[in-house]
């Protein structure tokens, strides 16, 4: 009860808090996000590297790469969608099983774990109480949008990049992680980032991924090798068939976590904000999830659930992040 009351208080204060925090946090973490040259808005996909489900030419009305991350204001209340979930007594969440540290199934325990999984559990706990039943459903990259539209899942928490094309099909929560395309290479390599140090190198990226379109736009003299899945790039790197990998920083970090001899090089050179994807009609659920996210971020405090999850899952390979991205609202 006490927890619930506290959450509600925080929710009520959230807009204010976020308004206050926005300058500081943005200056600290989100410089790229606000810099405005967001290629992520237009480019197709992120996540595990499958082709974007939709590359709608026409973005949602008024949606620009700059304001794509804006979502609805949080609300602790409910509505049709929240009631439906309560009636079913379980939350069905679409997740990834293959991305280390984010959403993956430990082959020895058979259990799913990671940053995304923990967030999904927090959402379920808020809606359904402490003994919440969460059904994790593995959705491949290409099924993320479809699963929401067909309502086979209530939400997707699976490193989904927020962009205007997708906002035509689904709704997004506020951003819960700030990522971007980045270069991964062996520690000993002379590669310094997404620049001319790639000249003559064999660079691996997933077919149909944002990395591939970035490389075709700015090749930097690299020879490009495409593979079905981003993790295949680490295999090629270890076998000496590739010299560097271009992928999402979150996924690159997941690769670095599996091989201590490789590391992220340079800074992310695109902006990609991850959000929880929901059915477009579930407005009440969007607001509810945004409220949970506000609590989760805890205003960016050192002891917030977000920071604890970051320490647990991501810090080792994505060091130097001082707090969650600041939520932005459209209403």
């Amino acid at each position: 009860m006490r927890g619930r009351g506290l959450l509600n208080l925080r929710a009520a204060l959230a807009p204010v808090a976020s308004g206050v925090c926005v300058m500081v946090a943005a200056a600290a973490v989100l410089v790229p996000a606000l810099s405005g040259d967001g290629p992520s808005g237009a480019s197709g996909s992120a996540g595990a590297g499958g082709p974007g489900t939709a590359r709608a030419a026409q973005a949602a009305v008024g949606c620009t790469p700059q304001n794509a991350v804006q979502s609805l204001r949080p609300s602790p209340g409910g509505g049709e969608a929240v009631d439906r979930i309560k009636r079913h007594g379980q939350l069905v969440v679409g997740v990834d099983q293959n991305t280390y540290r984010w959403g993956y199934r430990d082959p020895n325990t058979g259990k799913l774990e990671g940053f995304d999984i923990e967030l999904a559990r927090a959402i379920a706990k808020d809606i359904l109480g402490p003994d919440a039943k969460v059904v994790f459903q593995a959705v491949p990259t290409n099924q993320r949008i479809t699963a929401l539209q067909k309502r086979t899942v209530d939400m997707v928490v699976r490193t989904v990049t927020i962009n205007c094309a997708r906002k035509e099909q689904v709704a997004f929560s506020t951003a819960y992680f700030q990522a971007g395309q980045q270069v991964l290479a062996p520690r000993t390599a002379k590669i310094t980032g997404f620049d001319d140090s790639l000249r003559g190198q064999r660079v691996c990226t997933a077919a149909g991924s944002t990395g591939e379109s970035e490389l075709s736009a700015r090749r930097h003299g690299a020879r490009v090798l495409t593979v079905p899945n981003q993790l295949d790039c680490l295999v090629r790197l270890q076998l000496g068939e590739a010299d560097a990998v271009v992928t999402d920083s979150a996924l690159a970090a997941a690769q670095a976590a599996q091989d201590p001899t490789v590391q992220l090089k340079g800074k992310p050179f695109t902006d990609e904000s991850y959000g929880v994807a929901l059915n477009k009609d579930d407005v009440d659920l969007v607001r509810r999830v945004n409220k949970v996210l506000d609590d989760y971020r805890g205003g960016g405090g050192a002891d917030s659930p977000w920071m604890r999850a970051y320490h647990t899952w991501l810090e080792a390979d994505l060091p130097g992040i001082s707090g969650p991205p600041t939520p932005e609202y459209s209403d």
Partner: protein
Amino acid sequence: MPATPSAPPVSSMPPASSAPAGSASPPAPGHRTAWADGLDELRAAATTEPGRLRVIGAVLALLVLVFGAVTAWQVTDRTAAADDVVERSQPLSAAAADIYRSLADADTTAAGGFLAGGAESKATRDRYAADIATASQRLVQASANTRASDPAGRQIATINSGLPRYTGLIETARTNNRQGLPLGGAYLRYANDQMRTELLPAARALYDAETDRLAGDYAAAKAWPWYALAAGLVAVGALLWAQRRNYRRTNRVFNKGLLAATGASVALLVWLGAAHAVARSGLSDSYEQGARSLRVLNEARIDSLQARGDENLTLVARGAVLTKDQKDFYEVGFRSGMADLVGSGSGAASAGSRLGAALALADDEAGRQPVREALAQVRQWQARHDQARTADDKGDYEQALAKVIGTDRPTRESFDRVDAELHKALTHEQAEFRSAADGGRAAFGLLAVGAAVLAVLAAVGAVLGIGRRLSEYR
């Protein structure tokens, strides 16, 4: 014996031999070649009846001996080809099938063991190791019988260089998997890709090359010995002609020597024809019932292995690899493997499918029974597979995994039964092949030796028969 010869008095020996000799003497005798002498004698002989008889006798003996020699030669050739079928090319084709199957089985087993993770059973590990060992041993056997420049030799080289790489990838996959890293799955998929795109196509090409060699040996063993048959007909024809001529000139119906020669030649001709017909039918049977069935069954086994591998990999990849039209790559592979195996419908296997073809080729109940049983198990496998897919699609990975590699009516059980039934069918067809081919081979038996003996007998008969006539002129 009773009647007097009609012609002899007219042409007597002396003029026949003296006239040419007289005309030949004026040129310096030292410059006469043996060849010219022979020609002259022949010319002289042709003009007198004893001379003609001598020529006829020589030609008859020669024809009969040629018949015998050609028969012995062609039958030896065919016997050697039939031996090759049974002792060389069929075992090599079986070795190639073993390589093909072991490689596919290793890949499938590795994926199955991978799914079990740290709980991978000793049986699974042993099976994988045995598969790799079998493939390596059979490769040595195959390469010992193959020149490196042969098409088969090139495939052997490809497999030999690819296999260590493949096993290296599998071990890396295992190591990563044991540490709980998803990277292991990526290695396993890469290993599978190698197997699918390099090793298995090479193994298949090797199997095809060895099967072609088998078919070539069959064709060589089954080819009709036309030269021998033609030589036999000519010899018998010449003997009959000589006897008819004899009868016309002497009114004697039988010449014992010529009769014996004819008898021996006809006997050899009939023996040759009959033995060949029997051998041909035996070899044809072994090809139709054995070799073709073996081929279809081997392919069915590979199909089921690959379908099983894809089923395992669907759970390993968990949607990480998609086809162009956004379907799960491995699930698509499973379905196409099943379509090759039993066709797309339900119930009986479609005629164009492997099991349909195997059923049609099986010529007895003992051959059909395991194929039918395999089909029933495939249907059960498909039903269980659908349950596993449904569970996985609902997000219940645990249940899907249990349905595939668990203990309560899993698809693993169905697959193992399919494999066992196909193995049973293969063993049966192998025995059928062997007994039919041995029967065919036995038909040639003593024919080569018999041909030599009969031909010599016939030649002796012909010479004696003609000699009998010649003696009447002395």
